[in-house]
């Protein structure tokens, strides 16, 4: 770029009304009082909703995967495992609900990792809002995705002939419990999202953790049929408790201790990984 004195002349004049509008918006706007933390979280949740509206494709993996899981396992293994696909569906569906929604939590970490490479994080971090609000807001917004995934699984199940004994109330309670657990679990992946280098690394590691955890549970088979060492692991796996609780809630025969374990683990994960995520978010870059 040449910088001769000749270029010093004023740039092309903007229309007069443009200039007036500019002066107008520059007139000092009084600074409103600081937004409350809750309001900030909801605002960031709204941002998540807007993104889904603009890029609805991102819901595809959330909706297709559960349908595939349910169809595949019911019709491939149903006859072999439970004698009939209908009986197996009754057993399996709460498990696919858990599995589908839990897999969705990995995307919270992937999305955060992607966000961190964009300039918009600088904007958020330089605003006078409660600092973890962008994080909490997006995790809260992600709960909407969990709900979508959960609803799809239930809908597919009902079409295939799944009949929950506990009715609508039981199904809603099961979905609610799964969403609460997913909220806790998603903090693990947001932490990974801030520690890892690329969205792909987060995704691969996330699935590497989740696949064994969901398969080594009572999602697909009764633990009694397993070798004893494996059975011992399956019994302590929190995902087994989540699946049992969901089955129980939908069948109307829930064991309170399963719910207690699920809520306890969700609270524990949140207590450890939410502050860790917030700290990494604050100090990174």
């Amino acid at each position, binding site marked *: 770029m040449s910088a001769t004195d000749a270029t010093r002349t004023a740039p092309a004049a903007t229309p007069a009304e443009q200039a007036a509008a*500019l002066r107008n918006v520059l007139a000092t706007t009084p600074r409103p009082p600081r937004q409350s933390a809750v309001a900030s979280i909801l605002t960031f949740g709204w941002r998540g909703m807007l993104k889904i509206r603009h890029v609805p494709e991102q819901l595809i993996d959330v909706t297709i995967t559960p349908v595939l899981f349910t169809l595949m396992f019911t019709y491939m293994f149903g006859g072999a495992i439970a004698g009939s696909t209908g009986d197996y569906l009754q057993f399996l569906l709460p498990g696919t609900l858990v599995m589908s929604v839990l897999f969705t939590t990995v995307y919270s970490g992937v999305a955060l990792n992607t966000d961190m490479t964009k300039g918009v994080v600088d904007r958020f971090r330089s*605003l006078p809002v409660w600092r973890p609000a962008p994080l909490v807001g997006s995790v809260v917004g992600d709960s909407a995705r969990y709900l979508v995934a959960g609803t799809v699984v239930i809908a597919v199940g009902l079409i295939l002939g799944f009949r929950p004994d506990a009715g609508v109330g039981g199904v809603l309670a099961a979905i609610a419990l799964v969403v609460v657990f997913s909220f806790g679990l998603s903090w693990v992946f947001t932490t990974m999202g801030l520690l890892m280098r690329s969205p792909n690394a987060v995704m691969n590691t996330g699935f590497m953790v989740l696949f064994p955890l969901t398969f080594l549970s009572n999602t697909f088979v009764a633990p009694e049929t397993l070798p004893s060492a494996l059975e011992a692991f399956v019994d302590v796996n929190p995902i087994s408790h989540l699946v049992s609780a969901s089955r129980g809630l939908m069948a109307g025969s829930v064991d309170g201790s399963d719910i207690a374990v699920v809520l306890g683990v969700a609270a524990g994960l949140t207590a450890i990984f939410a502050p860790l995520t917030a700290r990494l978010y604050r100090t990174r870059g």
Partner: protein
Amino acid sequence: MNSNDGHGLDGVSAGLAIEASGLVKAFGDTRAVDGVDLRVRRGAVYGVLGPNGAGKTTTIRMLATLLRPDGGSARVNGHDVVADSDAVRATVSLTGQLASVDEDLTGRENLILVARLLGLGRAESKQRADDLIDAFDLREAAGKLVKNYSGGMRRRLDIAASIVVTPELLFLDEPTTGLDPRSRNQVWDIIRALAGQGTTILLCTQYLDEADQLAGRIAVIDRGKVIAEGTPSQLKASVGSGLLHVRLLDPERRPEAAGLLERELGEPVRLEADPSALSVPSPDAERGAEAVAALAREGIAVGDFSRGQPSLDEVFLALTGHTAEEREREEDEDSDDREERAA
């Protein structure tokens, strides 16, 4: 417009928007910022000039409380950037080097989002967003996703987002890098209008021209250190030469003119690609004018002449003994990426 004359002589803290001393930030073995002192008077437009990787972005990020300094201290609008970072954020806005807007939202949604986060009500936020869209010439694009914006539109939206609520201090990190001349001029107009309203602006740039156009004082930064500070005129005077560009009416006489200019100014003459143009470093405007007059006395008809400002390269060469580009090539690989996206 260049009336903002840096900080006053009193040095009273109350009059300073930025007061940084000995700021240090290291990434691994690289000291990206290595003892930066800055004093910026309230209401001033202050330029921070340097090549890529000099430490400009890291300095801004520390002042905007996005990075914690490893050493030194800084007060922004009277608040300590570490101990009182909440108070700092309540008085500043940042327009980062990567546009600080959400690409997956529309321009209007971006502005509403920021307005809501700053505490404006729902209706107020929409109104403010629409006013800003009108003023920044973004009406056509308001409903489109930002990822489809041109560079200039993105920059204007970015600055609009920074003034949803008027900040006391605005950080602008290379606001015109990569823009075409028309967009650059639009951004310059906006910056001038902001400065006219009394907003303090810290402007990081690689272009001496830009700093000269907009800033009342400039700090030149290299390898994490401030190596010169002053008004644009002082800076240019300390560098000395600018290039005298001469265009002859008769290209045939160029060799003759070259010889004469070389004798007059004692500097090597460069023959331009245009057969009637040549340029020569001239230490000051007066000697340049005399040299042109000498051409006229010899009967060599001059079609046009101008004296350019020294380029950033020349400033760097004069201040450091190496050019900005050499410096960049040297350290591009290691310190640069780390600074742009300090992770």
